[in-house]
């Protein structure tokens, strides 16, 4: 096995936990991956922030609980839209109510899990839970702007990207590689510049324009 890079050893010697260094260094890789998913594959998700932060939430909760939480939050978002539609209220109060409902549901889940002797979820620190709960705002905003169906598709894309991000970030080989060759992270810069200049069709657009492609001569 290769030895840890001198600079990483220096960071750790200064009191920064290795886990933190490793996560901070893997962040650019995940961000670049999300950019790739958007520009080349055409998966939009909820921008770059949401899939990134959800990836880290997944890392904290574990993928099983992470996805379960994600699905629950989205389901509650959908249900509360139906419930709140009749009220016809302004945006922020509406999101606040939705957040309240999500918080209650999660709390109920933790309690129910505890009662059934499944404390895995309750043992999770509060921050990933909060991240997942606030996800609902993004979802509600998208519902209002682009409709239920689009919001659902984007949520699904976010989940997929975050899951891929999760597996990427918890891949031992990558973690070791980053600690041995931290400078390699700088490679994400030219990759992103290339992605930013990429003007070809996205993979999803081949699907979107399939009828046009059939007819063009």
């Amino acid at each position: 096995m290769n030895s840890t890079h001198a600079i990483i050893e220096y960071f750790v010697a200064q009191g920064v936990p290795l886990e933190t260094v490793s996560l901070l260094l893997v962040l650019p890789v995940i961000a670049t991956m999300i950019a790739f998913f958007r520009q080349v594959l055409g998966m939009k998700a909820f921008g770059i922030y949401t899939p990134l932060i959800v990836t880290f939430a997944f890392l904290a909760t574990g993928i099983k609980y992470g996805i379960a939480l994600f699905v629950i939050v989205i389901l509650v978002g959908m249900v509360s839209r139906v419930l709140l539609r009749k009220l016809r209220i302004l945006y922020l109060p509406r999101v606040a109510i939705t957040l309240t409902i999500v918080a209650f549901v999660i709390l109920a889940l933790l309690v129910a899990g505890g009662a059934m002797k499944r404390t895995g979820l309750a043992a999770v620190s509060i921050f990933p839970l909060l991240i997942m709960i606030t996800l609902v705002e993004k979802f509600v905003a998208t519902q209002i702007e682009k409709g239920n169906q689009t919001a659902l598709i984007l949520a699904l894309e976010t989940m997929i990207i975050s899951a891929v991000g999760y597996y990427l970030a918890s891949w031992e080989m990558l973690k070791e590689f980053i600690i041995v060759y931290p400078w390699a992270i700088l490679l994400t810069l030219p990759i992103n510049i290339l992605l930013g200049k990429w003007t070809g069709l996205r993979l999803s657009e081949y699907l979107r324009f399939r009828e046009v492609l059939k007819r063009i001569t």
Partner: protein
Amino acid sequence: MRMNMFEFFLKSQKILGMNSRNLNFIRSCNSRSAKRLADDKIMSKRALGKGEIAVPKLIAKIASTEALDKFDWTTLPGGFALKPNRGFGGEGILVVYGKKKNREDAWVKADGSIVTIDDLKNHIRNIIDGSFSLSNTPDIAFFEERLQLLKLFKPYAYKGIPDIRVVVYNKVPVMAMLRLPTKDSGGKANLQQGAIGVGIDLASGVTTTAVQGKNKIIEYVPGTRLLLSGIKIPYWKDILQLAVRTQEISKLGFLGVDVAIDKERGPVILELNARPGLSIQIANLAGLQERLRRVRGITIKTLERGVRLGMDLFGGEIEEELEGISGRKIISTVEKIKLTGKNGVEVEVEAKIDTGADWSAIDTDLARTLGLAETIEAFDARSLPYDKLKDMTKEERWNVFKDVPQIVSTIPVRSAHGFTYRPMVEMTILIEGVSLVTKVSLINRSELKYPVIVGKRDLGRFLIDVKK
């Protein structure tokens, strides 16, 4: 297989994707200030009005909750449209058609539901709060005159006004579509919400292919037998000119102009779009990238020239498309055809396309030039009065004529001199590049305008356009 991949790659190069649109067109052609103008409906209305372009008239605007409280509701007419100033995708638009009978504080929507002042206030508060604006920033609500639906569009549009999107680049209109509100789209002319987009031939302003929603190619208005192709958009050239003029005023290099046609005022500009969507390519089943590439870098001096170029470059595809769909050529009622006779003699001649005749016929003089003189003479020498021939069996009749050179059969025809039997011979006819081997009758047509008629039997591979 490799060839196919390469062809596929070339095809995909003709389509404009999101990446290319953003980087090559929006980023490089549309300045920030121009985009700001396009995103601000009141501002663009004012700028266009100054340029003497017809826009729906502004009735009133409400920028704050204080203004909302003080607003005098009696100033509103019976019909109006309430819109968010910086809305997008047709969201947040409320249209009423008239005041509720015997009530001063209520209006009626297209679906018959009632809108009260309280409803309006609520909606306006939502607008001001930014519920419908880009990135939820606080917004202004405004009332504008309601446009009146053109009779022509009535059967096609569901509770709303169709509009025409024209994409303009470098002063040239490059692609256009008609957007029809449907039940699915809730009366909104927005494709994402399920409206219909119908491609338009730029030269003629006639609709071609259609898509509903994101990807469903359709031919008819859903639930009806109403064809979506072939609708002739009125004021077509005016619309294109308005679109180009709008581009000049807005200073957007690449934009989508939304035009509606009012029953009384004619074409009016509804709004500008600095980030035109890509679905227009599906409605037209054509690639935008290729069209933009052809227009890029050309210096267009005048508006008329730009419109002309757009019409010439991106029009006239209807015929080819129809031909593509049906696999049949379109011909007019008179066509130049080529006949190939005995010994390969070729004659080019104008023929009448006659769906009233079963078989094609050619004039005897023409037949002589085609080397069929012998046939005609031999036939006439053996010919008998019609009554006699008529009563014979087919075999008996054939026995009379079978020795005539080239003859393949006989046919009874009615001419100015009554009924007669005429000979038929084999002939190769070339019409619009289609070569047919068929049999034609030889008849004296010297008194008639065209020496040849082409009949039904030979027209199976054609569509006839009487206006061509």
